[in-house]
Every structure is written in C-alpha cells, then in structure tokens.
C-alpha cells in the first residue's frame, strides 16, 4: 500500500488498492511538478529518498489515519528521481464509506508526508539549482545548507 519508487506512478493503480465494497468515496491527491513558484520558472525537480525509512514513515501515516478515521483505507506512492513539469510526484488515495472522511484523511496524509517522510527535492531553475529545505516549502538552502543553522 506504500511505495517509494523511481517508476512512473499510475493513478489507477494506486486508486485500485483502496477500492472495496464498503467504500462509497475515494479521494485522491496527486502532486504534480508546477512550472512557476512565486514567478520563478522551474525546469525540473529531482526527488531523493531514504527509501527504507520513507516507506516506514508512510506506513506510520497510514496507521495514524487508521487511528483517526478507522473506516479509511489508504494507499500512497511517492516517486523519486528526475521529474519534468506536470509529472506526478505523489499519489495518495483514501477510500471511506462517506466522503467527508476521505477528504479529511487525504489532506492529513499530505500534510504529514511534508513533515515526516525522508524525501527531499532539488529544484532546477534557469539560473541554478537548490535543495528545498523545509516541509513548508518556504526555505531554500542557497548554499546547500539550512539558513538557520548556527555553529554548534
């Protein structure tokens, strides 16, 4: 149900993992590579993962969701490697008997992915490239390390 993969992600395939007779609603989140962020043009993204831990953390998110929405079933696939504009980086599928829960649990999953799953993205622009530094997508590491770091 949880996958970190260098291969193209199929929305249908991830969705099919959560289809079941008890479910009447499935909500998917599909993260794609956006061309412009705050006016700056992205050429490509590269995702690097710590695969074994990333899979474990995705499972943890699934367990957290099970605790909060016991009727939900979750599947997540996150891609690694170099992605072009509009390529799919992540697919989250959540099925529930009733739709409200599916929206909520799905949004919870993407928030948590951005907090705890060891996957990093490097943005490539026309004038350079940088590792993106925090899960809120607000900080860049212009010289390859977090800005807020002080000498220990």
């Amino acid at each position: 149900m949880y996958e970190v993969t260098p291969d193209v992600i199929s929305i249908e395939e991830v969705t099919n993992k959560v289809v079941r007779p008890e479910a009447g609603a499935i909500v998917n989140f599909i993260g794609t590579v956006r061309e412009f962020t705050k006016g700056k043009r992205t050429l490509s993204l590269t995702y690097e993962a710590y695969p074994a831990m990333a899979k474990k953390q995705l499972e943890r998110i699934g367990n957290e969701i099970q605790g909060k929405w016991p009727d939900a079933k979750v599947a997540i696939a996150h891609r690694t490697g170099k992605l072009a504009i509009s390529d799919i980086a992540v697919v989250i599928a959540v099925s529930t008997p009733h739709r409200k829960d599916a929206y909520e649990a799905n949004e919870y999953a993407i928030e948590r992915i951005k907090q705890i799953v060891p996957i990093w993205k490097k943005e490539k622009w026309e004038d350079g490239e940088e590792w993106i530094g925090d899960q809120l997508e607000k900080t860049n590491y212009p010289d390859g390390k977090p800005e807020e770091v002080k000498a220990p």
Partner: protein
Amino acid sequence: MITVQCFAHLREQLGQDQITVEKEKLTVKELLKELTDQYAIQTDSLMVAVNEEYAEPEDSVTKGDRVALIPPVSGG
C-alpha cells in the same frame, strides 16, 4: 565503527553518501557532536534516524544500527 547515511544537500556537501564515527556506542547527541567535529557539518536542523525511526537526543546508537542524518524533508 558506526556508519551514518547522508542525503540531499548533506550528501552533496560531503561528497559521499555515508560517513563514519569510530565508536561502538554513544547517544544521538554525542554522535552529532562527533560528526560536527569530524566533518565540519552543521547539525542544528538535522534529525537522526536510528533503524529507520526518528531518534531523540538521549537515545543510544550502537554499532550495527542503521543510522542516518535527516535534513528537513521536502517531499510531497
């Protein structure tokens, strides 16, 4: 010896995807201090994972554990 995996900007900065500390057992906090001294990396925003779980500063790390430095993540 404890082997520590590195990713993303850290991997590029170090020019290698793992670094080592000549210890058999120490705490996460001590490990970070060792790495700072040995490799001149700044560790304030790094988390340490031990056997694929986030570890606390007082948790211990033993030779044979799978250890990794986790910069702030940016997946999704």
